[in-house]
């Protein structure tokens, strides 16, 4: 169900915890699975659960509790914009408007060509660089303006 590379990464996470607490690796394992598959289908979650020797429902609970897991397909690039207070003070609303106009979608939507999904996020602990968004759960793109947004999006496949 997952590639040998993904399994190797999961094994590295498992090794961080006492052998009788493999479940501790479930958050990372789900992240690794999501990176490979693009999103977490129920069968992916079940596979991860079995791999770690835990009940599928327990892994499902984790997948639904934390905001960065995608339980539905998303576009090739997921853009999560922080709209919390510090970012809003620094112009998050204009950045959101610009992104929505440029991509032609609202929050929670994906462009018809499947390239972009736009999400609203909470504080990312990077408020000094506001306004900002997080790209594909990995990279914080800071000090957004129409120009920086254009440049970031132009650099994506």
């Amino acid at each position, binding site marked *: 169900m997952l590639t040998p590379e993904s399994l190797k990464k999961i094994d590295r996470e498992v090794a*961080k915890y006492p052998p009788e607490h493999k479940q501790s690796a479930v958050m990372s394992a789900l992240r690794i699975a999501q990176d490979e598959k693009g999103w977490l289908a129920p069968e992916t979650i079940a596979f991860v659960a079995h791999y770690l020797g835990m009940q599928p429902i327990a892994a499902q609970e984790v997948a639904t509790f934390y905001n*960065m897991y995608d339980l539905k397909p998303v576009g090739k690039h997921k853009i999560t914009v922080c709209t919390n207070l510090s970012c809003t003070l620094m112009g998050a609303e204009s950045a959101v408007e610009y992104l929505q106009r440029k991509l032609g979608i609202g929050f929670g939507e994906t462009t018809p060509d499947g390239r972009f999904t736009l999400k609203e996020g909470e504080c990312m*602990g990077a408020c000094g660089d506001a306004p900002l968004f997080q790209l594909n759960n990995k990279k914080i793109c800071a000090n957004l303006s129409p120009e920086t947004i254009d440049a970031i999006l132009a650099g994506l496949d």
Partner: protein
Amino acid sequence: MANTPKGQNEVIFHSIHLPESWKLANYLSVGGYDALKKVLAEKMPPDEIINQLKISALRGRGGAGFPTGLKWSFMPRNYEGDKYLVCNSDEGEPGTFKDRDIIRYNPHQLIEGMIIGGYTLGAKVGYNYIHGEIWEAYERFEEALDEARAAGLLGRNILGSGLDFDIHAHHGFGAYVCGEETALLESIEGKKGQPRFKPPFPASFGLYGKPTTINNTETLASIPYIVKHGGQKFLELGKPNNGGTKIFSVSGHVNSPGNFEVAMGTPFSELLAMAGGVRGGRKLKAVIPGGSSVPVLPGEIMMQLTMDYDSIAQAGSYLGAGSVIVMDDTVCMVRALERLSYFYFEESCGQCTPCREGTGWLYRIIHRIEHGLGRPEDLDLLDSVAGNISGRTICALGDAAAMPVQGMLKHFRHEFEHHIQHKKCMV
């Protein structure tokens, strides 16, 4: 600024001027790991380290300001079996972004602090729980751990001393409540991050049910300085009962937002000047001095205060994690509170009824006031809902949701009344 502000970059960001300050070689070049070497060479008694922490008046930098020396003394000394040290880098409190920079620019000092912690507390393993949204910092921390292991500073038989201690990074994945220490432990155990009822406290029943000490990133990164220079020197950097420097994250309407490490007790006005002053020379309206969860204070009051636990508490708010959100006179307080209330409503874990239901009530009432549908009785209702959450939940997320509401109504009630009466904003 003509004079260097007191304590600037003294404890944590002392190497930030170096290119690639995060590399082990660069940390060693400024005396990094000297404190650990001193502890190991002198076989410093754990009680002596704890005593220095007490003298230093280091208080927890995660928000509550609990004295670190006292916290460390709660760990059972003669416990047979595993104990754990956990670092809380889950910084998700709106306005807070200092731990990310500690990890990005000085990860080895945090590692050194954690190793000294492991030695003092008798823990063999430490975990650093890193906020899900800052993947790049997580990767950098993992690299720093690899460097430290390769240099014999981490793992088995550290520097040939016989001390075993290893650290692992745990990556969060988007849940503010996991910053609460017992939710964080649940999360490391691979569960939903729902806070545990206390007591038992983590020092007796923590990670995997074992004695555990949890400290904030900045707290642990301050330890090497205290061990190296003594608690007294750290204390004197700040003021009595408020030792050391503090990193203040300044965001919002300032010309140069960012992190500023200065002495505890630095006047707010100086900090504001360091951040370039209020954007566009506008009037300072209000400041949230310690992260979104603490009561807002009007600008005039803030300009009289110094940045330390006691001064801010006397004015009716909290220093929290030192997260300073600056608002100029263009800000509508109803709109600001609406956004914060939405956050707590979103992030409540749903375990306690007063918080799960109350945060929804707060958000909906403020939302309708903001959108011109407020009713005259709404302000009393807000007071009553906030009062009914406070102190009635397992963890302090409920209080964190109530306090901003109470602070806004105390200092900016007229703006809310204006919204209700005139169905529009006064700014």
